[in-house]
């Protein structure tokens, strides 16, 4: 039974050439995009506030993530909510990246990218849509935003919605402050909020 056939089989193939995994990922992402099979693409942008992960769908920008650690979980959420056809494809996020660069360079005051709102629902969606209307350099309060969203008394819920804003910076939740002048909270940490408000001239440089 133990003729050398089994050993010959094991030896016969020889060393497996190494698979270039990066190249495979890139090629597959390109082919997927060309064939309309890439439903969620993501790429990173090294912003002055640290690395951001940009996630886009065929509808538009769906998430902008400050948290490198949370990216896997956020992509899993998109797999459930949008589509599991998800791959890294930086060139698909170029337009958002370019506008963010301009914004941080001080040459852009408004973003002109379509938004995919599928990660927000109900009252949170109303709050964030109202927030999206606050102009560069202006601010609002949690109560004002709650009122805009249709529930003047729900300012705590408005705060929660802003705190879990999936698209910070572009949907400018940093422009919402406490009525008394306090900065309130921020999804990316209060230092980032301060930075953005200084960039927009709301806080002294």
């Amino acid at each position: 039974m133990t003729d050398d056939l089994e050993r010959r089989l094991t030896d016969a193939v020889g060393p497996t050439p190494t698979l270039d995994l990066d190249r495979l990922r890139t090629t597959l992402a390109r082919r997927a995009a060309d064939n309309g099979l890439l439903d969620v693409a993501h790429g990173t942008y090294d912003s002055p506030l640290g690395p951001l992960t940009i996630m886009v769908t065929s509808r538009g920008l769906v998430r902008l993530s400050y948290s490198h650690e949370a990216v896997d979980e956020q992509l899993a959420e998109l797999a459930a909510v949008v589509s599991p056809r998800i791959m890294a494809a930086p060139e698909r996020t170029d337009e958002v990246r370019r506008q963010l660069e301009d914004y941080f360079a001080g040459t852009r005051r408004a973003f002109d990218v379509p938004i995919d709102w599928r990660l927000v629902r109900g009252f949170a969606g109303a709050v964030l849509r109202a927030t999206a209307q606050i102009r560069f350099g202006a601010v609002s309060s949690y109560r004002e935003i709650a009122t805009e969203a249709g529930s003047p008394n729900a300012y705590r819920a408005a705060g929660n919605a802003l705190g879990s804003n999936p698209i910070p910076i572009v949907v400018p939740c940093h422009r919402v402050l406490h009525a008394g002048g306090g900065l309130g909270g921020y999804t990316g940490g209060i230092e980032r909020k301060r930075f953005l408000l200084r960039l927009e001239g709301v806080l002294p440089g």
Partner: protein
Amino acid sequence: MTRRRGVSPGVQLPPFETLIDAHARELHRFLVGLVGPTEAEDCVQETFMSALRAYPRLRHGDNLRAWLYTIAQRKATDVIRRTARRPTRDLDGIEPVAPPTATPGDDELWLRVRALPAKQRAAVVHRFVLDLAYVEVGERMGISEEAARQNVRAGLRRLRREVTTNDR
């Protein structure tokens, strides 16, 4: 947050790119065994393209690895059929055969492996190229450990017959 409406309700599939990260290297080794190093890389790519096309319609995400191996096996069979139609050196009427590509080692034996029926071929490659235990072979092929063992045994029996007839 409460659970939201998904694409396929009740099915939780991981982002597709995680399948590439988790399985591409091993699938590549498997395909090198099946179709040789020249064709294997293309075959990996085609495997993932087919998988991507079907992915959102999967009814469950239980054994994605076995699913990928099934696709890979099918892609390998396509390649073997396609290359068998090309003129190749005479192998005593054994068909289908892959052309003698630049496989290092025991070319002739591997041409015969590639001529095995698909299941036996896959089982033999899993067992001897990837050096997997029968239970793991079964997992990758979506069959039982015993069925994996039988496929390997049948494949070896056939190879032994051909090899002794022709080589010894």
